[in-house]
């Protein structure tokens, strides 16, 4: 059997076990209908630090001195809404002098690694839709997630792990698992959720104590399944389920190993803040460190979401009231872990091929109806990128003087998606999948690469 035949065979979902023994290196990688790369990639992996609930831009990365002047004045004629200044000071950091507010004292220390995009804009001021937009390029469920697209485009590096892992703190951001779905892409490209606490993945411990026993059963099951699949012509669900068995089999041994932090040095643990007594912070930091280990093990796309501290149903950053307490509390939990990740990757030489993206679904209003909070705002918000292929120390785009609207170099979610794909050597206009008679893509007819933030 030639390698080409094997790939064809494998891409139909059959012969996986056989393939894995014959071609020990890249059986899983060979499964995807490889699309790319279309050109030389800068990034090999990505860690997406996602801040659900909507982080306020004017309190974090987009200083607005004008709000200090307007503070307390009516924003609406009837005075039901008033302008609100930021409760935090902004300072310039690093050689680049990027202004970052005191909410993020740790992130401020890596300012020169960041390309801050201040001119973000999205379509939906609602959490579920905002989350789905940021992940799938659509405001409704059922479309493939960015992580699925990258894995579909490049294949997984790891034969033993899914290419897309979601590290969460116990709750899934509003919009649910649809934000992390493979949509119309093969199901093997959907995210595997890994909990911060307890058994990270259910049923990871084999019921068959003797591995030979499980192997024998799996071989027979596979043969049965293959004949079922061929009797049906073609069926993506069954073929994916067959692949999942192989994946599941390997995960049993590898996943606990990758997620185990015991062999990390004390210094590393300290860097991530794992010694903290704050449980939420400890769990978040642990997920950050796990993210690095997963990347090392060949997972292409790792997303980390926040523990649910203030969120209820809407995500932990959703501070309609108690902005100060809420944002500070969330920062306390996430700031050090995110920063440690950048420093750790840098010191291991991994940052050059790992992209770190920090983002949220939309921004918050520069004005308020209740003094203490800010509301949903889709026409201006900030996010940042660092690492592989990114020009550190950059500020891209601008909002107006009160942070109401992005006005300069307006950057859509599709633009960010196009840029991320570009860093992976994927052309967002060419990375498509034929489904239901048309070519589906992440950015649809939108999106352009934000060249200005690229190194």
């Amino acid at each position, binding site marked *: 059997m030639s390698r080409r035949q094997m790939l064809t065979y494998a891409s139909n979902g059959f012969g996986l076990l056989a393939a894995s023994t014959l071609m020990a290196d890249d059986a899983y990688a060979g499964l995807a209908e490889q699309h790319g790369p279309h050109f030389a990639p800068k990034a090999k992996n990505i860690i997406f630090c996602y801040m659900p609930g909507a982080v306020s831009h004017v309190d974090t990365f987009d200083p607005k001195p004008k709000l200090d002047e307007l503070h307390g004045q009516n924003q609406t004629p009837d005075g*039901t809404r008033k302008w609100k200044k930021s409760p935090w000071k902004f300072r310039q950091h690093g050689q680049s002098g990027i202004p970052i507010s005191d909410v993020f004292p740790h992130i401020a220390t890596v300012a020169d690694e960041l390309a801050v995009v201040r001119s973000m804009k999205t379509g939906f001021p609602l959490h579920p839709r905002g989350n789905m937009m940021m992940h799938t390029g659509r405001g*409704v469920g059922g479309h493939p997630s960015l992580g699925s697209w990258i894995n579909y485009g490049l294949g997984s590096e790891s034969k033993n792990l*899914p290419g897309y892992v979601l590290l969460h703190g116990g709750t899934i951001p509003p919009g*649910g*698992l*649809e934000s992390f*779905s493979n949509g119309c892409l093969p*199901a*093997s490209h*959907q995210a*595997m*959720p890994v909990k911060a606490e*307890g*058994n990270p*993945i*259910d*049923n*990871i*411990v*084999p*019921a*068959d104590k*003797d591995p*030979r*026993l*499980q192997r*024998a*059963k799996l071989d*027979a*099951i596979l*043969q*049965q*399944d293959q*004949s*079922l*699949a061929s*009797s*049906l*012509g*073609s*069926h993506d*669900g*069954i073929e*994916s*389920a*067959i692949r*999942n*068995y192989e*994946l*599941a*089999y390997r*995960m*049993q041994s590898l996943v606990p190993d990758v997620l185990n932090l015991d062999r990390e040095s004390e210094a590393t643990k300290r860097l991530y803040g794992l010694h903290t007594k704050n449980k939420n912070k400890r769990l978040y930091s642990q997920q950050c460190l796990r993210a690095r280990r997963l990347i090392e093990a060949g997972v292409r796309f790792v997303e980390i979401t926040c523990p649910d501290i203030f969120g209820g149903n809407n995500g932990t950053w959703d501070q309609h009231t108690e902005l100060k307490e809420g944002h500070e509390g969330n920062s306390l939990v996430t700031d050090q872990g995110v920063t440690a990740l950048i420093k750790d990757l840098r010191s291991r030489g991994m940052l050059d091929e790992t992209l770190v993206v920090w983002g949220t679904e939309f921004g918050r209003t520069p004005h308020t*109806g209740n003094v203490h909070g800010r509301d949903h705002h889709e026409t201006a918000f900030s996010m940042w990128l660092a690492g592989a292929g990114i020009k550190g120390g950059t500020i891209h785009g601008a909002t107006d003087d009160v942070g109401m609207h992005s006005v300069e170099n307006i950057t859509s979610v599709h633009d960010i998606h196009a840029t991320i794909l570009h860093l992976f050597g994927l052309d967002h206009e060419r990375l498509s999948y034929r*489904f*239901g*008679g048309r070519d589906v893509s992440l950015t649809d007819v939108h999106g352009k690469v934000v060249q200005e933030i690229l190194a």
Partner: protein
Amino acid sequence: MDSREAILQGGSRGPALVPGDPVASLLLKVVRHQGIKMPPTGKLADNEIASLEKWISTGAAWPLDSEKPLAAGDPDYYERLRKTHWSFQPVRNPPIPDVKNAGWSSHPIDRFLLAKLEEAGLSPSAPADRHNLVRRLSFILTGLPPAPAEVEQFAADESPRAYERLVDRLLGSPQYGEHWARHWMDVMRFAETFGNDWNYELNGAWHYRDYLIRAFNSDVPYDQLVREHIAGDLLDQPRINTSDGINESLAGLAFYRLGEQGHDDCLLFREVRTDVVDNQIDTLGKAFQGLTVACARCHDHKLDPIPTKDYYALYSVLSSSRLVTRTLDTSAVDSALKQQLRELKPQIKDELAAQWLGQSGAVRQRLLDAFKTWKTQPRPEPEDLKEPAAESEETEAESEKTAEEKAAEEEAKKPEEPKLLFEQDKVAMDDPLFPWLELDRRGGDDSAAIQQVWGQLSARYRTEADARARFNLEYFQSYADFRGGFGEWHAEGQGLLEGASPSGAFSIAPDGPAAVSGVFPAGIYTHALSEKLNGALRSPYLPQDKFFISLQVMGGKLGAWRATLDNCMLSEDYDIMRSPSSMSWVRIPTKFEKHDYASYVEVVTKHDNPRLPDRPMRLKEATPELLAQPRSYFGIARAVVHDCEAVPEDELTHMGRLFEHSAPKNFEELAAAYSQMARQAIEAWAQGTATDDDVRWIDWLLSNELIPNSNGLSGELASLVDDYRQIESRLTEPRVVYGMADLDDGFDSPLLKRGDPKNLGDLAPRGFLGLITKSDGAIHTEKSGRRELAEFIASAENPLTARVMANRIWHYLFGRGIVSTTDNFGRVGEKPSHPELLDYLATRLTEDGWSIRRLIKHIVMTEAFRQSGKTVEEATQIDPENRLIHHHPTRRLDAESIRDSVLATSGQLDRTLYGPSTQPYRENPQEYRKLFSGPLDGNGRRSIYIKVTRHEGDKFLGLFDFPEPGLTRGRRDVTNVPGQSLALLNDPFVYEQAGLWADRVMEEDRTEDRAEGSGDLEARIAEMFHAALGRQPGSAEPARLVGLVREVASLHNVSREEILDSHLVWKDLAHSIFNMKEFIYIR
């Protein structure tokens, strides 16, 4: 480019075109790529550009009705949508199309499908093989695999009616109702806890589930189900289930209550309330109409013609009704038993009264004896009489005590043995003993002094009685007097059927040596017949001008009062009654001064209290034992409203009668007077003429054991009480479910601007969607308007109701709806793949009496349903999603069917129908959030009986896409993740069931005739294979499976001879079969 106006006005570069002048038109330059290039990816074809040029040169005509820009809320735009969007148009019964291959099938549905296939140049697949077909049909109709014998019977039945018989048998099985009820529960976001902070239990939600199972099994017409869900309490003729004694129609209302709900204060957190109604509107809109009505909460619907005012019209309808518990039991429940109790009760009373009368003479002597004993006893020192420590919140130290320590303390705290009559620490003026003690203290042995004090006391009692009466009159306004009945209050529950009881009411003690649990003043008592009967007595909406309402109540075993503000059903304002056998006043602040939301109070037995079980430490008295036992009760006499901080004083009239006696000269005479009072009271009680004053004397006599409360007073009494208790013990436990009630006139709520509960707009008159009513949507009625709402939706004229339901049925049968977005028929929903077929099905549904079962049968009788699941390459190229149904779609079983078929295959499935749910198995129960753990195998019950808990559901079911119970979910996700493989490989449930299956197979082989060949390896493998997959192993399978068994045996070091007796080997085979894809797929 949306409108002509916009084009003519243009942007920064001026108008996009100049009508009649192509050369000056920017549009043409752009498409010719002169300067700006559009489309950027490539030029349009020359002929397309030529068309544009021609259009501009002829004046750029624009369709007239589109001249205005499209905008949500624009009445013209909405009107246009109403007239054009497909699903808003009336259902038309379309002609059955002609097809080329008429020989394939004469079934109308097949004709519709075939016409489309032929249009696409495709043809249907060959029929499925019979083994496969029976398995497919069985899962789709009942959610369970067929028994092996049933498979073979069908496979061998060559009669042309064989398939139809199979369909009828499956549709007639009780498992059909279970499976299809569960489908509907997805649509209804069914859950059994409320979520939010504390995840309070949705008590009795399982009654709603059982109601659905019964409804599907008896094929209740869908329009009736709709009416019952929306207004089951308002139907002219409720649907009564006489065999269970249940008012079925009431149960449908539970749907309103299944959403998430917080317990917080509605005033402080207005969203708590508005979110509940929003979720009701969302569910109602999606479930019955396939419309996302709730999108119009903050702004006019962007896509569908649903203005915000329509949303708030519905809001006004739904918030006019109260969110209350509903008793499903009809008055016929246990009517014979209750009649026996009613007949026994006066007999017990007569016998008891006779015994007491016989002993009433002894009252005098008992009083004198007690008095003498007390006088001659040494008096206790005052410091021994300690006040009990004030009740305080449990401190941290307290909570750290061990259970044993606490138990010991509780033991120590128990009330001491009742003191002898005269030893009581303090006696109030109300207590008949008060005059006696005063006479003793101030009169002593001096008869003149006694007579003098008597006169003073008489005057003092008169003055005090007058003062109390005046006080009560001055400060309290009578609000309700239950001594004459319920008045304006609303009574629900079996315990309130007896109505008001006159003075001298009593209840039989349910156990123990006492005969009665008390003799009571006039009032209403839920335990007049039994403490097992429930009751909820609800005030009208309370007057807005008083700070307090006080209730004169008694109650025990968690009988409680509750105050509910603006329908916040988990209100923190409640307490249990702490006076188990005599009336006392409880004062309830109304907070009326701060708002004008409708508020009411209710007095409830524990069955009707949504706050029970409460969160830990909130109500210490509600011990698990007390919560688990079936009894609870309350009594109520009066309600007053007032502004003062006090509660009414008890009247003193009962003491007046004592002073009608001439002044006693000594305690002998005093005792005689008391004795006469006793006799008079008991006689009046015996004759049924007792007054509340008599009752107070009887109560005093009883509580001081001056007359004995014992069922051992006579053989006759003992036997009567015993009979009573025997009968009482057989009473059905109340069946109570959360629902709604229209107890008041309806009222309109204000529109909330931008959905903000603090931003009130104009009142929104009650009504339904103008889109459906084809008018302004107003419902003109004094009442809530729910009844009218139900009719709008349940009407055959409604363009959406039948279409949406017919499509749901199709979705469950074919795995995908004709409209794939089952819950959205609006403009963002997908268009129907077969619009005529959908209208045919909708027509059929309404014209066939809205029978769900008959429509299912009609559809599964098609050739299309009976096709093979094998795909054809050519068809897949043309129609990859199989929208045209060129083969039967192969699909994974739903979560419940996977779990249920594991149990069915292993032989562990318990097919019992109905009943309280079983907790899901959890490794980490969190009891403080009501996340308890149940048995790993769920006691073998079908998955529909596993409790659906918010916060965290059953994990195994969740992995296979059992929906989160938040919103309507007519179409489940079908994910495919390694976690599912891991579960089937490693989950202890699956592994355990594999072992049990192996045991069963081995046991059967032992008890059956192994000698005749069923004991050999191949036969056993084939038997197990068949049990799980509904077919015999074929071609390479027998050898493969024998190979597996032998390999596994060798790994277990089991010799060839021992294989048949090796549990481990067969467990491994069972486990392997559970893991075959064929086990979890139907094709």
